[in-house]
């Protein structure tokens, strides 16, 4: 049953190593064969990463001055947000952007590797490291780099570049940030607190400072790329990060229909939780989070990060909870996007449902599909903590049913 306050997806802005925008991703989701992965194995060796595709930043960030104020992490977010607005047909709608709410899932921006190296190297020769720090930071830090590093400045730049100014909120906390961002946007639209919200995030994976954080747990894969579901602990096992930008325009059905917007899909439910993962408690929470999911005609987009033990647990749970549903582990195709991981899963799910896609396996262990799904389940299990599940339903076309409220 349709309702005026249903939360619908009307815009998708997506960038991965597979390409820029919806077209290459629809192609990937509707192809007859598994995608050819794009992996950079040399530049950050021994760490493989899925790199950015060729991007003409000017296509979404018109002013060179704006481009220069950012590093790639913020650029990618601002660019992807622009794609989503374009896709929703709202890019040049000043009234819509001026009242649009925004929730960005963000980590932090790029360190200046050269300055950090300079300080560290000098520090090895001196025993007054704190004084050294003051000297070098005062003279070597670029003032604008602070702004490129600040978490909430991705959103700030989206306001500047795309004029999205209804509200601006930035959520932090790795994968959970992306889950909470979608969950909060959903709850606000459902309750009538927002009519249209831009939500998403980005990760620039081609950064040694980010790889370092993952490797502090020895959680990053090394060596050649390996299939997502067949990575093992130890050499080559673990997370392969991907440069990803994923933004969605969410609207109430009423708001979307009033402007005759294209509706990709309806979000039926979204939720997140956290806590100890011992003694089956992870699976208990996932059961709770997925109560709204239908059993049949459903595809699962799993955001499994690549951590072998956690991926195995998730797969086992999925096979118990959704025995009929084909599973597609999307970080096997484009890498793990941390804060952007959950929005990325929703973006892919929305495109697949709208295209009626018979999605090819991303991995030999994933079963083939025979018919287009009506529903999609999106999962993201944080590599350290936090879990989220969303349930989406394909849009059945406008006008077929009357709004019930």
């Amino acid at each position: 049953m349709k309702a005026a306050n249903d939360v619908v997806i009307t815009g998708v802005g997506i960038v991965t190593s597979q390409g820029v925008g919806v077209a290459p991703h629809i192609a990937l989701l509707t192809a007859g064969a598994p995608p050819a992965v794009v992996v950079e194995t040399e530049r950050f060796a021994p760490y493989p990463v899925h790199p950015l595709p060729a991007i003409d930043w000017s296509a979404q960030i018109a002013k060179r001055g704006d481009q220069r104020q950012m590093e790639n992490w913020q650029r990618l977010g601002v660019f992807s947000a622009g794609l989503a607005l374009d896709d929703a047909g709202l890019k040049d709608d000043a009234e819509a952007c001026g009242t649009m709410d925004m929730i960005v899932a963000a980590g932090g921006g790029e360190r200046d590797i050269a300055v950090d190296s300079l300080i560290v190297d000098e520090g090895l020769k001196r025993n007054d490291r704190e004084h050294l720090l003051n000297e070098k930071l005062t003279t070597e830090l670029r003032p604008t780099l602070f702004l490129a590093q600040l978490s909430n400045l991705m959103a700030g730049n989206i306001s500047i570049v795309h004029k999205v100014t209804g509200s601006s909120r930035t959520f932090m906390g790795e994968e959970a940030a992306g889950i909470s961002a979608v969950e909060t946007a959903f709850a606000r639209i459902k309750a009538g607190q927002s009519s249209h919200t831009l939500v998403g995030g980005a990760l620039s994976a081609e950064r040694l400072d980010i790889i370092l954080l993952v490797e502090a747990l020895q959680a990053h894969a090394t060596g050649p790329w390996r299939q997502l579901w067949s990575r093992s602990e130890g050499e080559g096992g673990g997370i392969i990060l991907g440069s990803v930008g994923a933004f969605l325009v969410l609207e109430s059905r009423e708001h979307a229909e009033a402007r005759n917007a294209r509706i990709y899909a309806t979000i039926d439910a979204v939720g997140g939780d956290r806590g100890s993962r011992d003694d089956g408690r992870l699976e208990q929470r996932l059961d709770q989070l997925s109560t709204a999911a239908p059993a049949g005609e459903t595809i699962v987009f799993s955001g499994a990060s690549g951590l072998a033990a956690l991926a195995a647990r998730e797969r086992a749970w999925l096979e118990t909870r959704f025995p009929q549903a084909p599973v597609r582990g999307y970080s096997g195709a484009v890498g793990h996007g941390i804060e952007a991981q959950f929005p990325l899963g929703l973006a892919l799910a929305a495109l697949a449902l709208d295209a009626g896609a018979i999605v090819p396996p991303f991995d030999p262990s994933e079963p083939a599909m025979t018919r287009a799904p009506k529903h999609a389940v999106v999962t993201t299990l944080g590599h350290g903590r936090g879990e989220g599940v969303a349930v989406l339903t394909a849009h059945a076309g406008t006008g077929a049913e009357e709004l019930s409220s």
Partner: protein
Amino acid sequence: MSDAYRDHLGRPLIAVTGMGVITSLGQGLQDNWAALTGGVSGIHKITRFPTDSLSTRICGTVDFIDVPNENSVERSYAMARETTLEALAQAGISGDFDGPLFLAAPPIEPEWSARFALADRSPPSEQPADAYNRFLAAMRQKADPVFYEAALFGAISERLSDRFGTRGLPVTLSTACASGATAIQLGVEAIRQGRTTRALTVATDGSVSAEALIRFSLLSALSTQNDPPEKASKPFTRDRDGFVIAEGAATLVLESLEAAIARGAKVLGILKGCGEKADLFHRTRSSPDGGPAIASIRAALADAGIAESDIGYVNAHGTSTPENDKMEYGAMSAVFGEGLARIPVSSNKSMIGHTLTAAGAVEAVFSLQTILTGTLPPTINYQNPDPAIALDVVPNVKRDAQVTAVLSNSFGFGGQNASLVMTAEPA
């Protein structure tokens, strides 16, 4: 639900039933309020790190909380834990909180001490700018979960969730210097959505380090009037020259008024309305016409369902930067018109400095305390008024005044603007 528990739009009224606060003035609401209304400054010389070559050598750091490791995550967590214990005790809530957690926390990065320690166990440099390659080689040899944990944005909310038994996935947010207000707004929204009857809203910032200070310094945001430290923060004066970087935390327990009354809780005040508006003008500067700040204030008043003339006191953002104070005055003038002359407006930051991520919540606590006690905290260091800013800033000395509705503003880098309206408990 009886009408007494609903607001002008039929939504549940939101009660504040517990408050906790830490600033450089001390720990706990009682000590803070005594100092704040006594016109005492918490600003002092920086002792956490050497400052001899720095142009700013003062701060409002919190140096009296014990932490197991000296880093931003530990300091921020410890302060948030303490203010939450205080707030829950006041609210009379023990055991699991069983409602969502909304946490305003500073963006964090590895500490320099951690980078130096990593460098000490890393292989030698082979070419310029290869420190991170060496760090990675060291991590492949031996993982460092402490390094990882100290750089995780989710680390603070995770610990608070476990400690206090909050429900669901906690939100960790940053809207720069408006973060504390945004955390409260998220709590208000969650109760209005009907998905909870209570929310724990926490804001904390223990992130003052040499790099943090230098970054703000390079943007010319900080006061350089180092001597004497307690005189540096002078909002709305002619000789104000920047904010004083500071630390602090605050927790507010929010409940639907109905739920609070039903369990016999003491209602401290009502969180009546929230407003926000993003600014597209510049990354660090506000629109000179104050448009977004005006919109934020008006949105908060509309959300609260009260008129401009109902506001009896404004707890200003009042950072003591030349630009903010001018812009904020302009925005208030636009909203309140000639009525502004009759509204006392003071800045807590004259005494506690700018607690950054925590400021919106710290100042919300002080706003509610203003209503509860009938005492307006002063703006200290108001010796040389800016003639272009015609405000009753409650200069230098506290004032007795019963107010029933207070506006608190928070503005931040990245075009962040948030405003809160708090009112007296409906007797």
